[in-house]
């Protein structure tokens, strides 16, 4: 040890314990049909309380510290990845948010109650489907249906 006093034992918590980086960040996010919709690139934190998760956080929100109870309000994906790799911080308007209330399970992947196509963050998938892949002959062919 570092010579400091021994650590205090952590009391048992009343709910499931998750470490953000170990259990949530960079996991696959799957929709209700188990289709991947993105990776969990970051978490949005906000003050606890009613209506906390309703809108995007704004610049004039009061700064958070230990005096406020803070909760995870939404999962973030998309442009946040670039800033996690290269540093910096994207403007809040460019976060693709999935509200925590849609999460149904956290395991080796994070599962949602929605369909992926209903989420903003899959817009590139829909764009490529509508403009490129879906237009090629056979692009909507079911591989299980035979040739």
């Amino acid at each position: 040890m570092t010579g400091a006093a021994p650590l205090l034992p952590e009391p048992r918590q009343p709910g499931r314990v998750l470490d953000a980086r170990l259990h949530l960040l960079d996991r696959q996010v799957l929709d209700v049909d188990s289709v991947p919709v993105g990776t969990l690139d970051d978490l949005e934190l906000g003050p606890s309380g009613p209506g906390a998760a309703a809108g995007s956080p704004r610049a004039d929100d009061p700064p958070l510290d230990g005096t406020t109870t803070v909760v995870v309000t939404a999962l973030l994906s998309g442009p946040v990845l670039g800033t996690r790799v290269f540093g910096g911080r994207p403007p809040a308007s460019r976060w693709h948010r999935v509200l925590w209330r849609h999460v149904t399970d956290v395991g080796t992947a994070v599962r949602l109650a929605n369909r992926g196509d209903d989420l903003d963050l899959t817009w590139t998938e829909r764009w490529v489907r509508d403009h490129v892949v879906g237009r090629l002959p056979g692009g909507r062919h079911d591989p299980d249906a035979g040739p």
Partner: protein
Amino acid sequence: MIASDLLDARVLEADGQAVGWVVDLRLVLDGTTDGILARPRLHGLVVSPRTRTSFLGFERSDVRSPWPIAPLLRRWHRGTFLVHWPDVARVPEPDDADHPGPAVVVLRPGYLRYDATLHR
């Protein structure tokens, strides 16, 4: 605030003494039920005195294999501790153009260090 505002931030005591880096956020699902799961409450910060990288988490789990990777990483992260969120006095300001530089978390005087081990 987003998680990466806190992750990798330098941790200082109230008198400015550096004690390490935030390597992870401890969340507890004991908030009000929101959808199917309880809302995760930010319970505390996991602080490593030596390094910012903690991608494998051996210092917090009871996994001891594969030898010698697990013991080595555990040793590298020895002294990792948990501070509860109410012991945090100040967090990095997002979009803080006036104070560019490394993000810093400041702890309250008399904060307590808890064992960061995760129990399954």
